[in-house]
């Protein structure tokens, strides 16, 4: 046989092999009406909700763990294991808000058939309280819980050392990540003194939620099966398969090809192309509790790098807000999935809608900058006393953020403000003070990232942590979280009221006050509330499906979903 023939043979063989493989078309992983196929962009890091702060881990956990009560798509409480939401009126919460008495529904069962009782709840609270467990979550419970006790099979009582006006932070799904099966974890705790290293955290075997975890193929998929002992009965869809697609483009391709039925993480900028890729796809946006903002560096030299001197002048900060056309950004770059806002409470019941949204007005911006003494130089960039109005505008490497950066750079140039665009990997951008994280040490003038807002109560974590006078980081306070350096004692006082006041009217008034101060003082420019965008294939579902808000549990209604 000559070389030529041999090459031919080899090529023919390779081709034949490729054809055989391609023709292997037995649809082994066929989607049927019993299997919901979900695409996740990330793999959960832990299946015990107390040891993760990752959204995807929370979402996977929510499939297998029931909470006492959830929140629906319109933020209404949905009772799951609890017989009622405790209030002062029904006697569930004591007059001083320090004692909660919670009743469970009767006859609850774990997936292995063992009864789920007040004993399990009390054990869970005891685990949260013990610092030896080193939990990542539950700090608000850990710091305040005095005692948890079983009253009877379905009733338990919690006693706190301070008034706790927000039951959802302590017993609802936003606060109580998971309910631990005492019959599984107690022996581990007694043997090792901690449940931190329990194998059960990674490979759980007993569940209270609508599904049980059957198989976790690391790096690839998680297979869940319906839990016949679920409090609302066995879900109609018998299996849920979560597949991990770390690359969003291939995730969208799988969605377009009909290989995925449901995807919980479509980014705003991608909505148009995802929707266009397959006419059967429906995109649902649920407000998720994040607001994308431009944070301004108002710090002075000792903390440890000062922002641009112009930012100290509130007129400049207002001018920047006026000069950015947020309406166009949300319409053109984010497919109109969201609208601009000035309120740190946007989308929540505590938003003061009367404050309105600052319109796009470059003339007014220019006038304010002139007033502040920053006049146009010969090169088109404003200056004052020889200092140019040129600022460092940094964010993460996320593509959609970089697109927004470029548009804002153009818009600011129109009023004579120059910005230098910088982008960093998130692990560098959000690094701690000790690790010289960009935000923490103030190596920016304008920084773009998201903050959490409050949805179920007016205590706003951003106001409380990221804008508080006491939280400005420096050498002696390296753990400080206020990277803007903004300080308003008046706002800190209002923030304290939102957290501790027992009077809902007073709390709401304080939240309104905070929004007013932020509108006037502009420590940050809110761009828009970010939604949680879900895409699902309408051809696969019977009717429309209800998806919970990001603050609660997106699967709160999954037992009623049905495939065809």
């Amino acid at each position: 046989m000559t070389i030529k023939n041999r090459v031919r043979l080899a090529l023919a063989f390779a081709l034949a092999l490729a054809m055989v493989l391609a023709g292997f078309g037995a649809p082994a992983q066929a989607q049927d009406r019993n299997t919901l196929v979900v695409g996740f962009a990330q793999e959960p890091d832990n299946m015990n909700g107390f040891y993760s702060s990752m959204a995807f881990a929370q979402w996977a956990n929510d499939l297998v763990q029931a909470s006492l009560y959830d929140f629906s798509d319109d933020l209404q409480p949905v009772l799951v294991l609890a017989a009622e939401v405790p209030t002062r009126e029904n006697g569930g919460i004591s007059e001083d808000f320090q004692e909660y008495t919670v009743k469970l529904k009767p006859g609850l069962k774990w997936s292995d058939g063992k009864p789920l009782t007040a004993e399990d709840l009390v054990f869970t609270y005891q685990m949260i309280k013990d610092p030896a467990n080193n939990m990542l979550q539950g700090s608000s419970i850990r710091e305040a819980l005095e005692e948890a006790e079983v009253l009877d099979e379905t009733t338990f009582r919690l006693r706190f050392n301070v008034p706790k006006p927000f039951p959802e932070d302590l017993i609802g799904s936003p606060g109580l990540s998971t309910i631990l099966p005492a019959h599984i974890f107690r022996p581990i705790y007694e043997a090792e003194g901690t449940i931190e290293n329990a194998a059960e955290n990674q490979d759980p075997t007993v569940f209270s939620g609508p599904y049980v975890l059957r198989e976790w193929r690391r790096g690839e998929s998680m297979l869940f099966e319906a839990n016949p002992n679920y409090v609302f009965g066995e879900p109609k869809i018998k299996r849920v398969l979560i597949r991990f697609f770390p690359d969003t483009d291939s995730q969208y391709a799988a969605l377009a090809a009909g290989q995925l039925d449901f995807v919980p993480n479509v980014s705003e900028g991608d909505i148009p192309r995802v929707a266009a890729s397959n006419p059967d796809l429906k995109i649902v946006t649920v407000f998720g509790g994040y607001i994308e903002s431009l944070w301004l560096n108002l710090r002075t030299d000792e903390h440890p790098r000062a922002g641009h001197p112009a930012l100290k002048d509130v007129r400049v900060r207002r001018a920047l807000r006026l000069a950015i056309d947020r309406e166009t950004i949300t319409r053109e770059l984010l497919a109109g999935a969201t609208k601009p806002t000035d309120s740190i409470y946007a989308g929540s019941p505590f938003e003061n809608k009367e404050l309105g949204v600052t319109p796009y007005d470059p003339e007014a911006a220019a006038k304010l900058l002139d007033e502040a003494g920053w006049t146009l130089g010969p090169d088109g960039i404003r200056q004052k006393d020889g200092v140019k109005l040129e600022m460092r505008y940094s964010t993460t490497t996320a593509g959609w953020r970089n697109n927004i950066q470029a548009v804002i750079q153009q818009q600011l140039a129109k009023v004579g403000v120059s910005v230098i665009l910088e982008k960093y990997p998130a692990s560098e951008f959000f690094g701690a003070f000790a690790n010289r994280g960009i935000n923490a040490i103030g190596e920016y003038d304008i920084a773009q990232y998201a903050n959490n807002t409050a949805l179920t109560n007016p205590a706003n974590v951003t106001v409380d942590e990221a804008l508080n006078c006491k939280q400005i980081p420096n050498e002696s306070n390296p753990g400080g979280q206020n990277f803007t350096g903004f300080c308003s004692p008046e706002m800190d006082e209002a923030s304290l009221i939102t957290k501790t006041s027992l009077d809902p009217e007073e709390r709401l008034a304080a939240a309104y006050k905070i929004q007013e101060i932020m509108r006037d003082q502009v420590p940050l420019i809110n761009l828009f509330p970010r939604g949680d965008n879900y895409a699902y294939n309408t051809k696969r579902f019977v009717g429309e499906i209800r998806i919970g808000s990001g603050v609660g549990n997106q699967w709160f209604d999954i037992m009623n979903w049905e495939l065809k």
Partner: protein
Amino acid sequence: MTRYVVRRVLQSIPLLLIISFILFNFTNALGDPMAVYAESRNRPSARDREIIMRRLGLDRPILEQYLIWLIGNDWMPPIDVLGDGSRLEQGTRRGVLRGDLGISFVTRRPSWTRIEERLPWTLVLMIPSYVLTVGLAIAIGIFSAVRQYSFWDNVITSLSFFFYSMPIFFIALLTIYIFAVQFRRWGLEPIKWGGTGDGTLGSLLQHMVLPVFCLVAIQLAGYVRFIRSSMLEVLNQDYIRTARAKGLAESQVVRRHAFKNAALPLVTLIGLDLPFLLAGAVVTERIFAWPGMGRLFIESFERADVPVMMAILMVLSVAVVVFQLLTDIVYTWLDPRIRYS
């Protein structure tokens, strides 16, 4: 020979120590493992984050962290978890020298376990791709050399450069688009992709088609050119003319006299490339959702999971050292002129 091998192994010990020190500094400079909490929905409290930093030893100077990585902290004074001496905790790490590659910051599972889960899948993908690449490259390279500047040489050369110059992410997404998305629209049976299938061999093979095709397509050209040029060099040697003058069949000349000699530099190249099969293919694995080592590295990188990154890099470093040694030994076997002492 034995003395040579022993000497090489001994030499590699300080080398690996130096490599590990440099890599440890690099991986630690890549970012802050705590940064992942910044935009998370359930952000742990500042106090809890400080506790995590102390327990992971992230508050220590980098040299001390390296020392802990190397020889563990179970013999060191206990960790002051709260920073005020009220809660002490004895370290449990044994260090790399005692076989403990550390616990992943992200999953709290041993780094080695995470590698063990991913390594087989990477090999399942990389070894067939590599064998296919080298096999095809030898066939095509010899053909091109023997038929230099012929029509088919030009076609093959152009085609291989066409694929060579395509970015892998582009060719990967393109194949997905054509064979999975468009095939379905055209009413054809789409090729399955994304992950490794449902556990049966048939399904696995089908899921391998697209990623293997992409890997072969982008790697092939380099090898083809390499083999073609080293074959051309040998084909012009006097001993080839002699072989032909002896009246040997052309296939004998090419196979026994030319290719055997041309293959020596190829052995070096393969020896250099083999250890990196363990590293997997970052982009390909990511796009095809393949649970391999490349993806594990990127995922660890994104969350600054230093123990896992270090474990992967050290596995690779050791593999490089071992394969270098093996290559040198194979050399003496292939070419009797080479002797080590």
